[in-house]
């Protein structure tokens, strides 16, 4: 990805240098060639030339359209994580980054990832807007309270890279920084095997029991006061008002924190809110557990849109 952004930048830079040097030299030449030699001289007036105007409108416009299309195609790649990307959750708060691996490892201001593996970050904020920025990967995305945003990258060289918050978030904005450690796969496996307390989904399962969610959401097929949550992730569910909503991370999150906002058809808005009872981490654990109730093969492909075809091989 970094290389494809850089190639685009080289093109823009070439255009910018060509025009700025061209204009500079032309003005310099005119300023010397046509310098005022006497106060009384009166140059011949020239009022304009429509064919010139069209020429110097159309050529720059054509160049900018190349920039637009090229930039848009790179942007599509940046915006669409590949299906095989490894999922990592990010929570921003004043003033630290909390990162959670699926296997249960938690990190603060550090992210360990294997080289050559696409990584998808699903991110939210506990307070103000932050922004997850890794200059070496040329990626950046705002991290908002109340919703999930995503970004992804595929590192190609092991090493240690800056992680910055690039959306001003208060006094210690400058300190909301960290490091991304890109490791050889075997080193990553060794790192992964140390110190985890159970996967995200298993922590979510414990919460599911603690909060007695299964009292209403029967996971057995028996009718309950809430929908059976199996095999729903990634599908479209019909709401009480006839509208449809995608059963994704954002919808699960909203249904935990504001359950009556979008009630599934055939159910009553009786679920209490869990706002204040669960942290953003807990919500992510519950989401992972609920996602695990839908087997991989039962999920509709994530990138089943036109964007798939424009995806290029991702490089760092």
């Amino acid at each position, binding site marked *: 990805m970094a290389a*494809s*952004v850089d190639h685009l*930048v080289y093109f*823009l830079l070439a255009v*910018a240098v060509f025009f*700025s040097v061209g*204009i*500079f030299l*032309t*003005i310099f030449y*005119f*300023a010397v060639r*046509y*310098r*005022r030699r006497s106060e009384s*001289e*009166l*140059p011949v*007036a*020239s*009022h*304009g*030339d429509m064919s*010139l*105007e069209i020429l*110097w*409108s159309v050529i*720059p*416009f054509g160049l*900018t359209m190349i920039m*637009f299309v*090229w*930039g*848009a195609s*790179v*942007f*599509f*790649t*940046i*915006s669409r994580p590949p299906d095989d990307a490894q999922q990592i959750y990010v929570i921003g708060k004043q003033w630290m980054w909390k990162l959670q691996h699926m296997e249960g490892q938690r990190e603060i201001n550090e992210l360990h990832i294997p080289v050559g593996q696409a990584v998808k970050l699903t991110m939210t904020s506990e*307070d103000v*807007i932050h922004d997850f920025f890794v*200059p070496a990967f*040329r990626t*950046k*995305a*705002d991290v*908002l*309270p*109340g*919703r999930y945003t995503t970004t992804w990258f595929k590192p190609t060289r092991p090493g240690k890279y*800056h992680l*910055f918050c*690039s*959306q*001003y978030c*208060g*006094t210690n*904005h*400058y300190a909301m920084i960290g490091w991304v450690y890109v490791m050889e796969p075997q080193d990553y496996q060794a790192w992964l095997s140390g110190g985890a307390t159970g996967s995200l989904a298993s922590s979510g399962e414990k919460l599911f029991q603690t909060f007695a969610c299964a009292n209403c959401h029967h996971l057995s097929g028996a009718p309950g006061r809430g929908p059976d949550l199996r095999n729903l992730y990634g599908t479209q569910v019909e709401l009480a008002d006839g509208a449809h909503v995608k059963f994704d991370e954002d919808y699960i999150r909203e249904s935990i924190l504001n359950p009556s906002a979008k009630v599934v058809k055939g159910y009553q808005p009786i679920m209490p809110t869990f706002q204040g009872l669960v942290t953003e981490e807990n919500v992510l654990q519950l989401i992972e557990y609920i996602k695990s109730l839908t087997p991989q093969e039962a999920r509709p492909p994530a990138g089943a849109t036109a964007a798939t075809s424009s995806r290029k091989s991702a490089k760092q």
Partner: protein
Amino acid sequence: MITEAVQERENYLNASHGIKSWLLTKDHKRIALLYLHTITFFFFLGGIFATLIRLQLLTPKGGLVSADTYSKLFTLHGVIMIFFFLIPSIPATLGNFFLPMMIGARDLAFPRINLLSWYLLVIGGCFAMYAMLAGGVDTGWTFYVPYSSNYSNTYVIATGLGIFIAGFSSILTGLNFIVTVHRMRAPGMTWFRLPLFVWSNYATALIQVLGTPVIAITLVLLICERTLHIGIFDPARGGDPVLFQHLFWFYSHPAVYIMVLPGLGVISELVSVFSKKPVFGYKVVAFSSVAIAVLGFLVWGHHMFVSGQSVYAALVFSFLSYFVAIPSAIKVFNWTATLHGGSISYATPMLYAFGFIGLFTVGGLTGLFVACLGVDVHVHDTYFVIAHFHYIMVGGTIMAYLGGLHYWWPKMSGRMYPEGWAKLSALIIYLGFNLTFFPQFILGYLGMPRRYWTYPDEFQVLHVMSTAGASVLAVGYLMPLIYFMWSLRYGPIAGPNPWGATGLEWRTASPPPAHNFEETPVVTTDAYDYAALAAMEEAKVG
């Protein structure tokens, strides 16, 4: 002897005396001078903040100010420079003074409203100053929620009210200009005989009237959110923080053109006068101002490519942003073509015009980078963006403002400034500016984020260059302040038309009489008709 004779002649400066004759004046020229003093004060205030920021950033660990103070410094630098200097700058001073004179009018259409506009700016400025003295504000000039609504403990409301009030000043100035251009043109002054400075101020006025109410509404909503917790932006109450960004940039992107369009108009005047040629492609240049004003309303989403707006919205905003680049490019090409075959003088205003064209070109071309989706994701919210908009705002607007101020100073004061010192300061400003801001393009591309109190060591060399440049720039800006004041007493007498310019403002005495013209001028030629001017001079002599 001659000096005394000039001073005895009645003009707008000596037509009446006393502080009351200034504070209650309805003369657009005196109001322009009130504005000139006010925005000069705000410019140097904002400049002091900038100096402190650059000194803090000299070393990676800083140590000059605390993190809290630093956040307040960059916030106040932005607020003061944008809302209290750049937005009023050219329209309220040079526009106020010369727009009526250039169309042969005795005053603006609504002289009392014009005075009210100045008072509103001062009252708004007082609110901002109160916020500053009471403890400052630390949200950044962009006031992004939910930080500004729910988290910041600083004087957000006072600052917001200050900007809200100053906004009405801007709206009323715009309204005054629109009505004046429509209704008060001298006999024979058709739309296509208007000087391009008038066209660009007219286009600016359209944005001021149509855009400014939106920032006013946005600030009212922010204040309501902060005090009453109405939940329009707060996600915990079902609001949307991205909605704030849409509303904010719906004004604040067009506001970029409020700041730069009048500057483009100044440059059109300077390029013509100091090459003694009509502006090449007059109508194209005039319409490009209007095109920029209209298209400027359609591109706000390019500030939000990484904010979480949809991919398709981002595509549309990127596409439209490239459209706005074309009229700006057209202007640069036409100015260059104007020089061809001209009689080019190197007087100070022209040096500023040359500087402007160079810096505006770099600012515009780097705009293509940030409009490009794939690139903006990387450089957004880094020093690259800071460098880009300073090339437009400082390299563009302030260069044009200073160029215009030197050009019209003889008309405003009746005296010439010292040419040697002025050329030297123009050169210092140009070099200092580039040394300050060019390294920031590289810093941004290397990944240095904005609004950082301290930074990793590897960025230091470029920061040192930038701070060194800022010191040079500060000297360059102080010099005109000194020699302009000096020239009020000791400058050579200018005479009515020291540059051989064609505009109507040069057909009356310097400084002009209170009612601008001894008799209403009648316009018989196009703007920038230097042959007609020469014929007229000859007829007078003969």
